[in-house]
């Protein structure tokens, strides 16, 4: 399947996912920001295809799985680096977060490493490349088990109002 991301498709995807406010927020710069977002999405598709030999179709999610599209097209995810977007896509495809290392020190570059287990049982590791990558942490589902244990699993959009 060919994925052709252009300004109109990106505009349509953001509106469908409930992020039309972002386009308004961009105002006069909306066209430039949409083009930039589309290019960024193409980089993700290319990175994913290189790594896994499959072509993801984020725009197709808008119709097939609107809630997952809302998670992937959330501004936080769109701003993440391509490798971290690959991790997000793998989580949407059922991968579980097995381990997460996050180190923060005031004023220093944060360090974030994610280890995922795919439904095939394979382990994959991802490292944050950009400071904005750490914002994806707010989208991980949190389940408390046995009273004190925590399972981080799933990648979700904010609850709509």
């Amino acid at each position, binding site marked *: 399947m060919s994925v052709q991301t252009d300004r109109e498709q990106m505009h349509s995807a953001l509106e469908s996912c409930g992020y039309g406010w972002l386009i308004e*927020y961009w105002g006069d710069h909306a066209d430039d920001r949409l083009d930039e977002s589309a290019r960024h999405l193409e980089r993700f598709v290319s990175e994913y295809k290189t790594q896994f030999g499959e072509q993801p179709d984020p725009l197709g*999610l808008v*119709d*097939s*799985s609107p*809630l*997952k599209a809302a*998670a992937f097209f959330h*501004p*936080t995810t769109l*701003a993440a680096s391509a490798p971290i977007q690959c991790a997000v896509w793998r989580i*949407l*495809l*059922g991968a*579980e977060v097995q381990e997460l290392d996050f180190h923060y020190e005031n004023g220093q570059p944060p360090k974030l490493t994610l280890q995922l287990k*795919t*439904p*095939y*049982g394979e382990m994959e590791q991802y490292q944050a490349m950009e400071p*904005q990558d750490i*914002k994806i942490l*707010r*989208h*991980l*589902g*949190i*389940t*408390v*088990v046995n009273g004190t244990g925590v*399972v981080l*699993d*799933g990648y*979700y*959009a*904010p*609850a*709509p*109002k």
Partner: protein
Amino acid sequence: MDMSGVDRYFPIAYGVDATDIVLRACQRHWPECVLRNATDDEDRSLDDPDLWIGNSLGKEFFVYRCRRVAECWHKQGAAEDNRDSMLHVMIAAGENDRNRICVVEIHDEANNMIQKILAAMEQGLNDAGTVPEIYLLAGEAA
């Protein structure tokens, strides 16, 4: 022995991806499980990407602990030796996509693993979202 199922009802918070929550709860405790739509006769395993991001899974489906168990259910239905191995899930749409309910029919209320799956489902389905709607764009816009 009565082999009829018992229905458990879970309200689904608005905006929660109920199917994803159910799949993950099952995956965590029944990693070898297979799923079948109520409307077709194909058993799918969790490594089928269409289950996760396609629309191949409908609003009513069955989850079996493993493929062998699924075949057993298909052949003989509910029986004493498979009562703790299947969940019948229905996601009922509410008005304006609100007030949705997830109904899970189980055949063994006492089974520890089934209780864990239901607890994980309940927690996820009740979660109104892990993320506040407020996020800072100022830094990104600068």
